[in-house]
């Protein structure tokens, strides 16, 4: 496998072409169909009453005033849901259960307490205001370190009377401890990846429509995983799966937030079943930020040992995870801490160990894979901050320390000390390309000159490795459902076709890239391949789109299904060209008789023959493939941030940011670039602006976009992008996935840059977000000392 520039667009039929997104025509024209665009006859509206307090007994819920409001038809509480066995539902991986509406007490501020059903959205909102809930406040638990004392119990309902949820570990503890102790140089630093939120621009919502005549429950919902949701609904309600139809229409961003099941979905379904009316529930921004799946909230103690000349000897990461009120982290069932074992990153550690303890607190539940594979962003942040801290301790350049410790190209497939087998990579070449492109030596020279003048300039590097594409069914499942994915291709007589997959785009551009994969395999026009996802009655069963798994898994299924179509087409081609099957080969996107270049037939011609002249072959031209990947894929990148910090105000200006990504084979470079721009902007926001913080009383301090800031084009830096290409050796088209790499890799680059700028002041770490006030305070503290 050779390292090359990004694959040239020339010479390929569809793959690698910067084709404009097919779906954008309708989005730009305002013709997208989102959940709130769905209006059904006789539809009712549902709104939710939320808790004001983080931890309190509910002493009374008074519905009377609400029920007197014109248009209000019902107020649903946990008691009502208990009557149909839905007061509690299982969490994502099935290890815990969660309240749909508060049962007896509230466990976090803004928790769902009751639901109001009304004839209009306004009446439902008025009903919410009129429901009187009386509370007896309890002491809240707002961090895992207080939680671990068990002085106040968050969950009395559980058999184990402790806030401790689980302990997880991987690697060799004793050998790692011994290696670190024996090392010439050691670093040990606590870094906190703050609680943040995916904050999709479209919040969650649904329309539940029970048809009393057919007994079919149709759920239009903002779902990143429609089939998984159908199965979960069937399991918890007892409704046969054939009587549940989940439709996920256009989605305005998901980023992991639209994977879990939320109270609004359940209450709407119950209300529709009871009333026989369609029920619409649409979240407000505050509801989305305060109740739906958060991300991160990992406190990580990073220890690295190294020799005097900078060769790493061991890594240990000890994590305290804040899971909120329920263990609802969206991780595969057998991986409670997700893929955190990727924390050795791009480096060849002889030995490593990591352990994690998760705790209940009086905060909203979650732990979703926010634009990353499960917990990979946290792991990448830990190791990339750790490598910079090590470089600082060694007095070495952080680029040199990385170069010295990268897994070498000839070590792939590389078995990491924490159990993953990295598929491919050439980390040295990718970082060198980044260093050359950014002008690293010149920047360091400029930095030295500025430091001499007392100015604060920083350069931050992050050379992350992701692990994505869950996953091989021998390891990965959600409540027993294996994490394969699927594709179905049907070619019409005129050579156009329909492509269906078990995934669900939320902005990733599947309607374009899926068509390009199939078109590349079949030599057809991608513009004439209709991609359809998100309808469980028509799409093949799949586990959905999250954790950067679509291209690694469903993308592979698409290629394999297309190859099945092509194989059948080859049989028809043999009939059409009157040649033995063994003499028919696929050359330059056409079937050709071996040795007779003039005797060819196109796929479009074969498609027509499949319905008009199939000969001895079964008519029609279609195939389905369920792909079970043999391994995960390991995209990686080298990111460099250049910042200037104003020591008088603490303001950081990101002067440059270069992202070199290696995601293997590129399907559409324009979409890849767009994905990287979006992910970098999110990473920038996380590094400098965003935190779902709670005060000591358990109050959520970022319940809206006034407090939880979203960067606009005015704040966002200019992004420079480029790539290298080391295809995945086990993926049918060599693709690895890219949508989440920039969110995974960029926070550490930003923070490393700011810490590099502040290093002359002796400042080693400031936890994100690096707001002006935090940076200014750190500078004041350091200069005072």
């Amino acid at each position, binding site marked *: 496998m050779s390292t090359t520039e990004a694959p040239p667009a020339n010479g390929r039929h569809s793959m690698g072409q910067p084709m404009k997104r097919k779906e954008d025509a309708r989005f730009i024209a305002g013709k997208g169909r989102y959940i709130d665009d769905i209006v059904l006859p006789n539809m009712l509206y549902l709104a939710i009453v939320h808790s*004001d*307090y*983080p931890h309190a007994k509910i002493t009374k819920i008074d519905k009377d005033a609400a029920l007197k409001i014109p248009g209000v038809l019902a107020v649903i509480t946990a008691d009502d849901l208990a009557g149909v066995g839905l007061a509690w539902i299982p969490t994502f991986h099935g290890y815990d259960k969660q309240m749909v509406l508060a049962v007896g007490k509230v466990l976090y*501020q*803004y928790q769902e307490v009751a639901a109001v059903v009304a004839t209009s959205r306004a009446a439902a909102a008025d009903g919410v205001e009129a429901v009187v809930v009386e509370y007896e*406040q309890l002491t809240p638990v707002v961090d895992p370190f207080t939680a671990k004392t068990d002085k106040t119990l968050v969950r009395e309902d559980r058999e184990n009377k402790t806030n401790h949820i689980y302990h997880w570990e991987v690697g060799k503890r004793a050998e790692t401890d011994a290696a670190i102790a024996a090392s010439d140089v050691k670093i040990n630093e606590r870094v906190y990846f703050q609680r943040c939120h995916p904050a999709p621009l479209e919040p969650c919502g649904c329309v539940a429509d029970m048809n009393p005549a057919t007994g079919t429950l149709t759920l239009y919902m903002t779902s990143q995983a429609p089939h998984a949701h159908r199965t979960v609904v069937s399991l918890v309600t007892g409704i046969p799966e054939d009587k549940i139809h989940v439709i996920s229409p256009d989605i305005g961003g998901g980023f992991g937030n639209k994977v879990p099941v939320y109270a609004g979905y359940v209450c709407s379904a119950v209300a529709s079943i009871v009333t026989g009316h369609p029920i619409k529930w649409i979240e407000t921004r505050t509801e989305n930020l*305060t109740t739906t799946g958060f991300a991160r909230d990992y406190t990580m103690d990073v220890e690295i040992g190294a020799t005097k000349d900078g060769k790493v000897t061991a890594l240990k990461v000890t994590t305290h995870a804040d899971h909120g009120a329920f263990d609802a982290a969206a991780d595969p069932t057998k991986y409670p801490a997700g893929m955190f074992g990727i924390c050795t990153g791009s480096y060849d550690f002889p030995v490593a160990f990591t352990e994690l303890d998760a705790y209940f607190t009086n905060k909203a539940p979650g732990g979703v894979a926010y634009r990353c594979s499960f917990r990979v962003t946290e792991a990448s942040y830990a190791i990339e901050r750790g490598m910079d801290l090590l470089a600082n301790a060694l007095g070495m350049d952080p680029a040199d320390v990385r170069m010295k410790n990268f897994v070498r190209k000839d070590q792939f497939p590389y078995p990491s000390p924490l159990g993953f087998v990295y598929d491919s990579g050439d980390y040295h070449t990718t970082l060198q390309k980044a260093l050359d492109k950014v002008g690293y030596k010149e920047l360091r020279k400029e930095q030295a000159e500025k430091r001499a003048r007392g100015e604060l300039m920083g350069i931050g590097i992050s050379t992350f490795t992701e692990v994505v594409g869950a996953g091989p069914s021998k390891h990965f499942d959600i409540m027993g459902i294996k994490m394969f994915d699927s594709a179905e291709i049907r070619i019409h007589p005129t050579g156009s076709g329909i492509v269906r997959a078990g995934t669900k785009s939320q902005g990733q551009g599947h309607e374009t890239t899926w068509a390009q994969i199939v078109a590349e395999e079949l030599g057809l026009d991608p513009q004439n391949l209709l991609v359809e996802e998100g309808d469980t009655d028509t799409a093949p069963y799949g586990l959905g789109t999250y954790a950067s798994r679509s291209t690694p898994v469903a993308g592979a299924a698409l290629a394999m299904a297309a190859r099945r179509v092509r194989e059948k087409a080859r049989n028809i081609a043999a009939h059409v060209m009157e040649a033995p099957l063994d003499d028919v080969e696929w050359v330059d996107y056409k079937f050709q008789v071996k040795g007779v270049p003039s005797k060819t037939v196109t796929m479009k011609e074969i498609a027509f023959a499949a319905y008009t002249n199939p000969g001895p072959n079964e008519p029609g031209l279609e195939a389905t493939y369920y792909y079970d990947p043999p391994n995960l894929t390991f995209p990686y990148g080298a990111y460099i941030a250049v910042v200037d910090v104003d020591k008088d105000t603490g303001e950081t200006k990101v002067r440059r940011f270069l992202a070199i990504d290696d995601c293997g084979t590129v399907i559409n470079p324009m979409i890849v670039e767009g994905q990287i721009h979006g992910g970098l902007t999110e990473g920038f926001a996380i590094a400098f602006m965003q935190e779902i913080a709670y*005060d*000591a*009383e*358990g*109050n*959520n*301090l970022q*319940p*809206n976009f*006034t*407090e939880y800031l979203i960067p606009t084009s005015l704040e966002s830096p200019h992004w420079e992008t480029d790539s290298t290409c080391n295809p995945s050796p086990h993926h049918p088209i060599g693709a690895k996935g890219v949508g989440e790499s920039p969110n995974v890799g960029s926070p550490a680059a930003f923070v490393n840059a700011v810490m590099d700028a502040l290093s002359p002041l002796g400042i080693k770490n400031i936890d994100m977000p690096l707001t002006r006030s935090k940076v200014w305070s750190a500078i004041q503290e350091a200069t005072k000392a």
Partner: protein
Amino acid sequence: MNLEWHGHEEVGTSKAQLWAFISDPKSVADCVPDLVEAVVEDATHFDAIVSVGVGPVRGKFKLKIELEPQSDGNRMNMKISGGGLGSTVDLLAGADLTDHGATTSLDWTGTATMRGKIASLAGRVIDAQAQRVITTTFANVKARCASSSA
């Protein structure tokens, strides 16, 4: 959300006059800004309804207020608890009186715990707003005590 404030007023009355003023629930109630209604229960307790307008949290709070005169006559504590609009407030205020003959120094402190919507939705502005309320209250004490003694 835990908040702390402190301040100082130089009141143009004798210590005895100031002590008498701040020991009277009705007088103290009248000094609370944005007061809608006050009902004195006894010599040390009164209920108050005040208008609240902090960020998006707008409406009325019902508060129970207890005066706690210290036996030496040099310090008055005040406990305020209550809330509304999905919010609760617990506030402890204290004022130390120092006699300067014709004038009296009034050094006050306040600590408050805010819970619920007011802390969540209005956290960024609550500190300044609450400080305005408590500062105004003691400024009113100064002004009204002086005028009632004139």
